[in-house]
């Protein structure tokens, strides 16, 4: 079924709506300029249509009614009015994108005070940002950037405006439609997690270790700058949560001398969570990295200038995404930006995303420690794992992400819309437990969630998910026990739970058997139901300290 979207505007956007129809189920607007009317009237066709996403593409000049008076940033009556009406129409179950501002009209060219245009645009954008901070389901649609890229002269057409209140040229409407498609698609695809990079002729020009003194092409001008700019884009991706790795055929010492020593390197050693700088086959290195980071091969994108290497990885590891490499270095930064948008970009960034590289790098260290400690219990003890319950309602965004993105350690693989989860959090018959995990190497962040339904006499653990980053450390035993104890204290004597088989959740297939639960129902391999007597739980094996001060 196509996603239902609505685009509301104060100018004629009908042509753009037609462009969106092949991909989405689009709300048929009743003209234009009544965007707040249809939003605020519960009986409107807009509400009947029930769009999942609503885009407000607003022309600021029309909002201002051509009144360019300087009222001050926070007190423009037109802008205040628009946002106060808009805010009263927000439905917590829906997602809204509102355009930022580009003030266009012939008279702005005649403004004596050249700062006024910017000030008016800023007044709109500031109000919009404030609304976005208050309502997590309202987000900014980057309209201004589209117009800036295209140029005002190519974006607006007076003739079409006079003929039919169509403000935007065909080209601009095409760009807006494209941006709307991309935005909606961010919600429907699973982003990749790791970008694996080659070094020679990829991150820099030339070959490490070939010349004694003047090594590689990487500088502040000419082709060297093209490579530096590529690194800048990658660095920003990393800051947005993309995990970086090196898979390169070099002498490690030569490569590291450049990475840590070259004055123009943007990506230093600490930017990479994993490194495989050796002469092994790249696909073998990639498999090793996948094991080390505990990720599926479908989480990886591999970027390498050598077509033979790319082809080999494509053939040996078809799950790994291998984008084409541009012919000229000057195209590198743009191509990388495209890769970011296509494979990595997310609709919302959480704190966990921002800390990801550190976490994966720490994980790689943990694996090394595991290899050096022969006794598993001893290893777990040395990790000094601390599990801390955290307030679920205060971390709703992470809770939604965790439940929806976890495939392996997941009892039911039921997915929740953000609004649905907010309902669960409010529901007195649901207990939601959320846990943060730390160890001696660092903080994993919030990595596990449990939802228990207490509407029936015997409570039912409906959801138990845990991030793959902390699997295999018996942390689940401690978490289940924490939930059991909490329920027992509340007066419940039994607990039920279940397992619904999916392609990926094998890791929890026999979890509850191992924790001493009795199987009460079994439907072949597809479904199991369990029960336990909370007054007689067996002793569980784990090396975890529970930090019970809920934050």
């Amino acid at each position: 079924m196509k996603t239902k979207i609505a685009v509301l505007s104060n100018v004629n956007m009908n042509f753009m709506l037609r462009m969106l129809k092949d991909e989405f189920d689009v709300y048929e607007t009743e003209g234009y300029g009544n965007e707040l009317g249809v939003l605020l009237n519960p009986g409107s066709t807009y509400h009947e249509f029930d769009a999942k996403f609503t885009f407000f593409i607003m022309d600021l000049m029309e909002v201002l009614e051509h009144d360019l008076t300087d009222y001050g940033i926070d007190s423009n009556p037109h802008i205040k009015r628009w946002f106060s009406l808009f805010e009263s129409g927000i439905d917590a179950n829906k997602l809204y994108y509102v355009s930022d501002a580009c003030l266009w009209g012939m008279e702005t060219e005649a403004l004596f005070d050249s700062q006024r245009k910017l000030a008016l645009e800023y007044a709109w954008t500031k109000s919009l940002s404030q609304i976005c901070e208050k309502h997590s389901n309202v987000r900014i649609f980057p309209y201004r950037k589209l117009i800036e890229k295209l140029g005002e002269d190519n974006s607006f057409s007076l003739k079409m405006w006079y003929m039919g209140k169509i403000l935007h040229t065909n080209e601009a409407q095409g760009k807006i439609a494209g941006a709307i498609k991309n935005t909606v698609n961010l919600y429907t695809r699973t982003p990749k997690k790791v970008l694996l990079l080659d070094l020679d002729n990829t991150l820099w020009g030339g070959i490490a270790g070939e010349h004694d003194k003047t090594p590689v092409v990487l500088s502040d001008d000419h082709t060297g700058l093209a490579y530096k700019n590529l690194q800048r884009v990658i660095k920003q991706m990393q800051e947005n949560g993309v995990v970086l790795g090196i898979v390169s055929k070099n002498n490690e010492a030569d490569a590291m001398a450049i990475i840590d020593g070259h004055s123009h390197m943007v990506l230093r050693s600490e930017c990479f969570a994993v490194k495989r700088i050796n002469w092994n086959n790249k696909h073998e290195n990639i498999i090793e990295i996948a094991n080390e980071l505990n990720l599926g091969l479908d989480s990886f994108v591999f970027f390498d200038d050598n077509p033979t290497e790319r082809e080999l990885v494509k053939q040996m590891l078809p799950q790994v995404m291998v984008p084409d490499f541009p012919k000229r270095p000057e195209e590198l930064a743009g191509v990388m930006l495209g890769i970011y948008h296509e494979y990595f970009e997310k609709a919302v960034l959480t704190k966990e995303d921002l800390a990801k590289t550190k976490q994966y790098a720490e994980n790689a260290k943990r694996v090394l420690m595991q290899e050096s400690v022969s006794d598993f219990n001893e290893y777990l003890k040395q990790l000094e794992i601390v599990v801390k319950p955290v307030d679920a309602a205060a971390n709703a965004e992470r809770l939604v992400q965790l439940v929806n993105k976890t495939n392996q350690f997941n009892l039911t693989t039921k997915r929740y819309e953000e609004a649905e989860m907010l309902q669960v959090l409010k529901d007195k018959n649901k207990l939601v437990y959320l846990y943060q995990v730390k160890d001696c190497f660092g903080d994993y962040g919030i990595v596990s969630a449990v939802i228990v339904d207490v509407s029936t006499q015997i409570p039912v653990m409906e959801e138990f998910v845990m991030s793959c980053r902390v699997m295999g450390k018996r942390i689940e035993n401690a978490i289940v026990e924490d939930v059991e104890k909490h329920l027992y204290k509340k007066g419940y004597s039994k607990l039920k739970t279940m397992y619904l088989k999916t392609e990926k959740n094998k890791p929890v297939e026999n979890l509850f058997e191992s924790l001493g639960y009795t199987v009460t129902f079994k439907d072949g391999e597809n479904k199991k139901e369990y029960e336990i007597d909370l007054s007689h739980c067996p002793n569980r094996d784990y090396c975890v300290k529970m930090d019970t001060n809920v934050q």
Partner: protein
Amino acid sequence: MKEKILALITEVLKVPEGTITEETQISEVEAWDSLMHVMIIGELEDRLGISFSVDEALELANVKQIIEKAEQ
């Protein structure tokens, strides 16, 4: 120029080739509503440099008038 105009209109309206001819009356083509009319005028100006004033554009009744304007 005539062929280019016919091709452009056909493309914007997304109608089968041959639907739009020199004899076509705008009111006879279902897809050619007022919105599409504005888009066609915009494209004629952008891509073929054929410029109508707003009044002229709103008064157009058939394809022949467009071609005549282009040939002026």
